Structure formats: C-alpha cells, structure tokens
C-alpha cells in the first residue's frame, strides 16, 4: 500500500483520508497510521501546492545556477551546500555529476534581486570557484504537472 499511497498523494496532497482509504481498498485507520509513519520516517517531508505564478500579477523570477566549488577535506560538498541552502530564497540545492558541482535553484522578485544574490552572496563564498546563472523564461511542466489548457475529452461513446 505504501508505494501506491505515496503515488496518489504526490499528485494530490489535498485528498481526504476517507477517499484515500477507498481508493487503496483499506481502512481509514490504516491510512492514518501509514501517513504518520511516513512523516516520522521523513519520507513525506511536506505538503505543497503547485502554483502557476505566471497567471497571477505577482512578479517572480526563477534562476538555475550552476556552481563550481572546491570540496573541503573531510566534509566534501556538504558544508558548502548547507551554507547555500540556508538562504530562504534558495528553493533547491542538488549535488550534480558532470561539469559543475551544485545546482542551485533560486526564486526572487526580480532579475536584480537574483543577480544581487549571486554576486554578493554566492560568488563571494570562499569555496565557490565560479557560477553560471540561467533565468527561466517559461515553465512548461513542473513536478509532473503540465501548465496549459486542459485537454477536452474527444472520445465517442462506443461499445
């Protein structure tokens, strides 16, 4: 049940417990217990909402920043990653294989705010060797959700 449960709530975090129990074919109490366990184990680490900010009049800028760093003796990349992810404007930090080390995703109110963060905070860290900032121009799909008009049901009634 665990995997199926996770797959359902990954797509729909607002589903109520009763419905979840029906879809999984189990008792509601089992769902409650399993969710609690998943939260305790840190497998479920939050319930978020997918928002297409472009449709609001709130300005938002998202940037992907490639960061090359010098790993530190005994700590590897963890300490530098932690120093970066502590900033609230940083939404994600990933250690990456290949041409650079960390992928930092940053949300800001404006281009200026983002570039200010990169030049003042990020690139001035001792272990940061270089950065390359990419601004997101348009989001087509995020977390498995396609942004765009919903498809019409074109199917015909047939046997």
């Amino acid at each position, binding site marked *: 049940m665990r995997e199926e449960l996770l797959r359902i709530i990954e797509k729909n975090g607002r589903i109520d417990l009763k419905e979840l129990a029906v879809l999984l074919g189990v008792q509601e109490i089992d769902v409650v217990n399993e969710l609690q366990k998943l939260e305790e184990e840190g497998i479920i680490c939050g319930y978020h909402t997918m928002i297409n900010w472009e449709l609001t009049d709130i300005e938002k800028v998202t940037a992907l920043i490639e960061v090359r760093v010098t790993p530190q003796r005994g700590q590897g990349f963890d300490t530098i990653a932690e120093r970066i992810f502590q900033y609230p404007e940083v939404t994600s930090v990933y250690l990456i294989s290949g041409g650079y080390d960390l992928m930092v995703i940053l949300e800001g109110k404006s281009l200026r705010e983002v570039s200010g963060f990169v030049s003042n905070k990020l690139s001035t860290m001792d272990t940061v060797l270089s950065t390359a900032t990419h601004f997101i121009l348009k989001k087509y799909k995020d977390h498995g959700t396609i942004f765009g008009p919903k498809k019409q049901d074109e199917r015909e009634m*047939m046997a």
Partner: protein
Amino acid sequence: MRNPLSDTIVSIKPSGIRKFFDIVSEMKDAISLGVGEPDFDTPWHIRDEGIYSLEKGKTFYTSNSGLMELRKEICNYIDRTQGVKYDPANEVIVTVGGSEAIDIGLRAMLNPGDEVLIPQPSYVSYEPCTVLAGGKPVIINLKAENDFRLTAREIEEAVTEKTKVLILPFPNNPTGAIMEKKDLEEIAEVILKHDLIVLSDEIYAELTYNGKHVSIASLPGMQERTVLINGFSKAYAMTGWRLGYACGPEEIIKQMTKIHQFAIMCAPTTAQYAAIEALKNGDGDVAEMREAYNQRRRFLMNAFREMGIECFEPYGAFYVFPCIKEFGMTSDEFATRFLEEEKVAAVPGTAFGDSGEGYLRISYAYSIERLKEAMERLKRFVEKLRAEQAK
C-alpha cells in the same frame, strides 16, 4: 431501381449505444460514462516511436501478417505472460484492432449453418460477425449469480451437433467479469468433449485486479483449438492506432491471413512500429494505468455500497455493471431518465444482449473527479426514484 442492399446486412440491428451518444453530444454539461476506451494518452515513448518511423519514411505496406519483429514481440509477450509458445512465422497475424481478428477468425472457421456459442452480455460485434460469416449465433445468457462467468453447464445446455465455435469474451466488456483458472479448467473439459474451437477475446487481459489473467490457451489440449485475440487498444491506451492480433493453429491463421490479405492488405505500418515499442518497454505504463483503474474501481464499488445499489465486484476491464432492477424500470428507461434528469450517460445493459436487462454499464475510464461528480448525480437520482416508489 432494384434494392441495392444485402438482406443479411439489412437484417442486422445497429449498435444500441449510438442513440445515447447522439443525445449526449447535443446536451451541454452532460457527463458521459459511456466510452469503451482508456482516458489516458498513449504513453509518449510509444507515440515517439510511431513518429520516428514516419520520419524515417517507414510508410510502406508491411507483410500481410505484420512486421516480423512485431510478431516476434507478440510471441515473447504471450510466452512470458501465459507460458504459451507460438511460431511468429505461421501462428500470428497482426490485425486492424482486435475487432478485425474477431471478424476474420469467424469467417475463416464457419460454414453455413455452423453454430457459434456467444455468452452475453458481451461486446456487440460477435453476433453480427457470426451472421455475416454465415454462422448461426446461439446466445448463452450469463447470470449475475455466477458473477457473469461462463459455466460448463451453460455450454452443455447450449451445445448441439452443429456447434463449432465458442466465443470466450473475458475479461468481459460490459460486466467486468473474469474467468479464473479453475473456471477455465471446468469449461475446458466440455470444450474437448464436444470438439469445439475457442475464439478467446482477451483484449482486456492486462486489466485484471485480483491476480494475473489466465488464457484458456495455456490449459492442456487447448492451444491447438484456440484462436487467441488480443491487441494494443486497452492495455496501452492505443485505440486510435487500430492494432490487434490473433494467435492460433497454423491452419486457421493461414486462412485468416488470406481474408486479411484481400480485405485489408496489412495493419497500419506506423501503428506496428509503435506497438513494437509498447511490447518492449511498455510494462511500466500498463502497471501505472492498471493501478489508476483499480483505484477508480474501488471508488465506484464503494459509492454503490453507500447508495445501497447492488453490484457484483468486477475484477477485470474498466467497467462496473450495477443492477438497477429495484427501480422497476428497464435498463433503457433507467438510462434515458438518468440522462434526461441528471445529464449522465451510462449504457443500458441491454446494448450487450438481452441478459443485460436490469443492468447498466458504467465505464471507469474517467478521472476520479469526473466519477465523483457522476456518483453525486447518481445518488440524487436514486434517492428521487426511491422516494417516487415509496409513494
């Protein structure tokens, strides 16, 4: 002018579902629960292979039987799921949907007057295809008390010395019934005893919810007397690609290929390339869709329980077949009123044979949100009917 038409075709009734669809399509905000095809898009990697084959200019006829690579993959698939081995060179034909396979299968086997046992409720084409092939349909009315499974006894009662073919439509459209191994073993004895050939329509084989589907061809002595029909429409959400297949004894497949060669030439080439990808790398997609269908199935069964509507638990396909006898209306009356008063289209059970009287086919090839809305409307409708009855 003389009558330009064939008496045989004129005598065949058109499918009963059409009428409902015509009303639905004119009605705004009507919810349909009537379709018989998946709501999912064909998985992208499969579509992509189709597109790639077009880019490479693979736009010619294939061999009549279908691409050899596809036939090999079909044989692999049946071997790995059923443990039944077919020779891709002589025992497989790729067809335009499972429906063509039904048609040419019957035409290849029937002589005038041969009787064909057709369990109903079932898919609407068996009966007309039998008639068009010169055979005589003999209907077996499946019973709710058997969960709409076919029993040896029912075959015994319907068999005559003219009986040649048994159609085995499981997992079943419209009831969602399945035949488990023990059920198949029971009927296999009678099939052998009366020397029948089985046309086993297994188009919903991948959509079962209490264990894996078992093909009758996997039972001892059955492969040599079974034409196994399957396809890509339901498992991989590929209805519009029009691709199915039949596997069976060489002598039957050879004659089916002849009809196919003259009537069709070959199944669509693009679809064949896409289907190779589906069989090679599509298991994960099928599992995902199966899980989604299963959740919806549980949702509907729970909704019926809460409304107090009788419905046996179906373990296959994507249909539920609730009983509406308590309301004292025919299926047609119920479905018509439901559509007019609550704007929900469900198909009357009688569209699939007389034994569907008193039942409704509800498809769950729809999102949970849609099903939720439909069940709220059904609840309102049912409460109204019960209040009417109480007066």
